């Protein structure tokens, strides 16, 4: 099945709505495009597909378009949309699912943001706690954003706000177990 638009035809992936619905637990099919979500979204002006459009694309099984969109990665998870939706759809839960699926597909819609979150997770995985200095270093090396924010970083460091050494917790066995499960993704959403 194909969807015909003024930009040509694109394949409808019939199971996509059901998949996102099941993983997010959100009643996506109820959306009637009132656009309250987009009206209140702080980043609506900075994404390729606005929140209400993302919902429509999911309803139409537009998997590729949705997963390659910047929308999910730039979502702030501030829940303004979920609070206002007359149909009880918590879009931030949907965006979480889209981000995770787009990582699995290997082509996240905003590479800087996906790298930032992965650097954050990889740092805490090593010691059980976040270490901003190490995390920022890893992020900068991965994305080659080497010279951004050096001035702020230096001021933070001078004020004793960036620790040089990470703290390692004792219960790393528990953290390792959690990360091993996360890799296998056995727990259903």
């Amino acid at each position, binding site marked *: 099945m194909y969807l015909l638009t003024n930009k040509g035809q694109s394949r409808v992936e019939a199971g996509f709505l059901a998949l996102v619905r099941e993983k997010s637990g959100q009643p996506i099919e109820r959306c009637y495009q009132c656009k309250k979500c987009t009206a209140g979204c702080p980043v609506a002006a900075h994404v390729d597909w606005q929140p209400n459009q993302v919902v429509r694309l999911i309803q139409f099984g537009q998997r590729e378009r949705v997963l390659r969109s910047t929308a999910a990665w730039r979502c702030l998870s501030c829940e303004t949309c979920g609070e206002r939706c007359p149909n009880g759809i918590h879009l931030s839960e949907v965006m979480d699912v889209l981000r*995770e699926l787009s990582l699995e597909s290997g082509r996240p819609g905003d590479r*800087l943001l996906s790298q930032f979150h992965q650097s954050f997770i990889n740092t805490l995985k090593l010691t059980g706690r976040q270490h901003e200095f190490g995390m920022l270093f890893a992020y900068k090396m991965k994305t080659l954003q080497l010279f951004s924010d050096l001035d702020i970083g230096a001021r933070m460091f001078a004020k004793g706000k960036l620790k040089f050494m990470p703290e390692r917790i004792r219960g790393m066995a*528990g953290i390792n177990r959690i990360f091993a499960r996360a890799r296998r*993704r056995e727990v259903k959403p």
Partner: protein
Amino acid sequence: MKYSYYPGCSLGATAREYDLSTHAVCSHLGVELAELEDWSCCGASSAHSTNHVLAGALPARNIALAQEAGHDLVVPCAACYNRLKRTDSLLAEDPRQRRELEELCQFTYTGTVAVRSLLELMDAVGLSRIQEAVVRPLSGLKLAPYYGCLLVRPASVRRGDNPDHPRALDQIMEAAGATVCHWSYKTDCCGGALSIARAGIVKELVDKILDMAVDAGASALVTACPLCVANLEMRRSRRHTLPVLYFTELLAVAMGLEGTRAWFRKHLVDPYPLLRSLGLVG
């Protein structure tokens, strides 16, 4: 009153002054905070953005520790609070998720330990108790109370307060003698989650919030979120000079506690000149 205390990663680093002022104010109010033994990172926005197993299990591990310690868990960071509280609600309400998280984090959820934000803790202390402790009212200080997103949304994280017009922080600051401005941006998101990777977008959001606070007549913002403070200080245009303070710092000033100057020095925008011009600090 004794509580377990979950500082989270920010309070040991970028939000050091929040940690120090929280301890000073709580001990002055007779609240005992015992750091949760061997706590780990809640995963913040990066866990739920990348992997649903991490999103639930990283907070659940800390809830398990708090249960063992046996006291309600106080969480000053709005992001940690949001994640821990949501996971606590999940454990209480979703039997399937609960079984899976119990198995993964090796504990049995009892629901006997509550997750509380610092604002909720102040609620338990009571406004009258706070008012009694004020020796140097914050007269002349006009504040824009800024809640941000994480303390008020979704519904599972807030108790009672109105999602668009929360009052908890307003009331605490009024009890300390400050003047509270009415403005419409108190629960708008500052964009903290994008602060590192998409600074350009965030600058627009931050400037808008600061513009609105200035319009409302505020001479400073007051908040209970370390990500908001870092973001609002870091990502502003040069034209903005408005300081951003933790409510605990201002309570400490009003209570006449020692050591405030050292906390103010840690801010990227030093609030000392403003407070000094109003005669609130020496």
